């Protein structure tokens, strides 16, 4: 069984937000909904000695996923390959998962009354052997997706072969499967 993961190279990301748009267009999200924001940290420091980093995010598909635990209906689920997703039919829109997620990765759809989130484009991309939209659209190849159990995968090599690798809010113990290179 694969364990899907993403590695995001902040040294490459330029904050162009293409991934945000690709995601919303292909997943047909409401115009005011974003699964994968790209934030800008900085410029920090004082002119001209400044630095700036762009931080793309998305659902971290955590191993210890507080959102799944919080869901009273069982709509929030995690597949064996690690993908956390919401079964829309079961969701009642209580937002317990929205609140439980430390990464802000879940959003309410007010039209539908349900909660939505990134599911690594499982249906029309990953399960078809294709890359999630945010990965394919990135000119900078700042997002790398793959099976981290597979020692030959790029994600495995990047995570295990880099010194400057970390995860967001690691101290919360959610065991996220999105890694950041910096």
């Amino acid at each position, binding site marked *: 069984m694969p364990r899907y993961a993403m590695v995001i190279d902040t040294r490459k990301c330029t904050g162009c937000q293409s991934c945000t748009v690709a995601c*919303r267009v292909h997943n047909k999200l409401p115009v005011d909904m974003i699964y994968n924001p790209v934030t800008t940290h900085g*410029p920090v420091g004082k002119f001209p000695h400044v630095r*700036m980093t762009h931080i793309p995010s998305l659902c971290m598909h955590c191993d210890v996923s507080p959102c799944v635990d919080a869901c009273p209906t069982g709509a929030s689920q995690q597949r064996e390959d690690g993908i956390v997703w919401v079964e829309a039919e079961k969701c009642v829109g209580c937002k317990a998962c929205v609140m439980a997620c430390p990464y802000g990765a879940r959003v309410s759809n007010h039209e539908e009354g349900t909660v939505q989130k990134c599911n690594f484009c499982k249906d029309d991309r990953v399960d078809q052997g294709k890359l999630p939209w945010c990965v394919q659209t990135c000119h900078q190849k700042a997002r790398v997706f793959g099976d981290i159990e597979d020692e030959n995968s790029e994600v495995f090599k990047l995570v295990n072969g880099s010194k400057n690798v970390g995860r967001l809010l690691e101290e919360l113990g959610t065991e996220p499967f999105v890694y950041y290179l910096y």
Partner: protein
Amino acid sequence: MSTKIDLEQEGVEVRKSVCYFCHQNCGCLVYVKDGKIIHFEGDLDYPTNSGGLCCRGNVNLIHLDHEARVNFPLKRKGERGAGEWERITWEQAIDEIGAKLEEIREKHGAEAVATAGGTSRTDDWARRRFMNLYGSPNGFHNSHLCWIPTFMIETAIYGWSPFEIDLGLSKCIVLWGQNPAISTLPEQAGISALKKNGLKVIVIDPRFTETAAKADLWIPVKPGTDLALALAWINTIIYEGLADYEFVYEHCVGFDELTEHIEQYTPEWAEPITGVSADLIREGARMYATSKPGNIQWGVAIDQIGKPAGAAMHARAILRAITGNLDCPGADLLTGPSQEFITDEEMELNDMLPEEQRKKQLGSDKYKLVTWPGYGRIAEITKKYWGKAPTAEWMCEAHPPSVYNAILTGDPYPVKALLVSATNPINSYGESKKVLAALEAVDFLVTCDYWLTPTAMLSDYVLPMAGSFERPTITSTYGCSDFLMCSQRAIQPMYERKTDFEFWRDLGIRLGQKEYWPWETLEDAYFDRIKDLGYGVENYDEFVEYFRFHFPEREYYKYKERGGFATPSGKVEIYSSVLEELGYPPLPSYIPPAENPIDHPELAKEYPLVLTTGAGIMPFHHSEHFNIKELRFLRHEPHMEINPETAEEYGIKDGDWVWIETKRGRIKQKAHVTEGIAPGVVFTERGWWYPERDLRAPELGGCLESNTNVLTSTADEHCDPISGTWANRGLLCKVYKADGSDGKEAN
């Protein structure tokens, strides 16, 4: 939520198309069934984007059938700008426009008709072909602001512009006023991949851009003072003995004159002008001169600094020459025009424009480089050497501000009609208020566009244009590259849209040019251009299907085989005989920015801050895409940038609406207080208008409210005397908080 589309179903055809929202033309695979697009994605096999698409690329299908698109020819019914339209047929539109143009030519001469363009996302050879046959020399684009003067100065000096950069072997790239991380994403991907191999990146930019954030060296030059920096770099390289003396003495003329001339321009001299420390200036110069081979990538910044622009381009060009970073592996390559396919220029029929009409080209008496005097001379030289000339549409155009002035004043002669295609001049050309006045004043205005832009709203006719996926495309760097990248149209244009080629062809035929327009379709015309390449294909679509590209083998040191460079002396002319011939200084001397506190102390009292405008911002492109909600959501209001120190001085807090004012007028944007810009410097975002507002006059979609071009200057004394480019950067401004009484806020 599954959005799965069955791409394997019967009857689905995959078309090799490109995104048409900027010149990168990223490859796309478009899935078509029954003439309708069911899906598209970035083409993983396309060499530039490898499947990648930017924000804009991703909204192609939203753009394609957006509710606000113009889909049928429209004729004005009520007053100009009243927004009352009658739907007419193409035949009627072409017939009536043709009749009007005939009438104008009879009464006022062909030169009384001008055309305005925007970016190179039209088939401009067709426009020029029409204009040459019609007899008017007054076609223009925003070419001055975008590479064209650079191309022509470099061609005057080296015999072609070395825009082909051999990055794979390079050790250093200078990004001079360019932000590929936002504006040319595939290029940035290449740069960041090569950084691992030791490629050094120098970014020269007043702003700490996304690209600067990843650079080895950021040189925050004060807007408009690039010339001082370039001169100080030359000084450093020569006086620290870092020049490539072998190249200089064997292949250049004027090095000794330069050495003497440049002595005065020390880094210490440049420090107070540029706001960059002499040490940092030296560090940059050394990095470029010693990390060889190296590249200087073109960026629009110098094209847009107005008065000092020509000299700055010359100085920048000299940097390549004295370091020998020309046409050698890893450097900037002089490919010359293609020797194999028919170039844009060869499609233009420039010989059909009589000499006496060339002389009437507006602005060519003052600004000679990119008008007939300079272009004619340079084309003569390159034809002798390469057998071909640069594309005339772009490299040889009327001076836009001079055309707008002629419309307004009738001086030197009246301009009665303006045919606008692929531009919204109110937001894209300098001094918007003047441009708006000219558009209101011109007798006859026709706009070809996707949308009812503020300009289209003022037009007598608006014609629906085919856009992305609805037209085939040849990507060839303004027709000046030696390679071709070709793509198919995915579908025939929807509704009654047509390509601009068809517009010019139909109009040409209406005006008796039938014999010169043998091609029924754009594909036919394209096929004519490539059929002699020897691929054995029957038509253009087949070429795209099986080959798609034509990349000639890369040759270095062409000047060695060809016996020199395409210049009068056959050498790189540091000391430029062409410029001298045209009456310009043969070596670059320092010229301060159009407005600056030293030469204009009184002005600086009222307008104490230095302004830079015009940089590209995601997710928009020039004045486009403000009506695409999916993009606008990411940046729904305009933001100007200001340093915290300066902001505090003026009582401005992050997120405040502020007025930015120059002598030309004022605009409103929100303050982004950031350490990424020097104290005393202000940056405003370009392009802004509000398509959601009332588009009728006088509101015109709020086209002046936040439009940075209200601030820019096209006054003759602010234009570059060589090229005529006007001043978007290096101007003086003031900034103050907008209070509630300032009228309605944006949104």
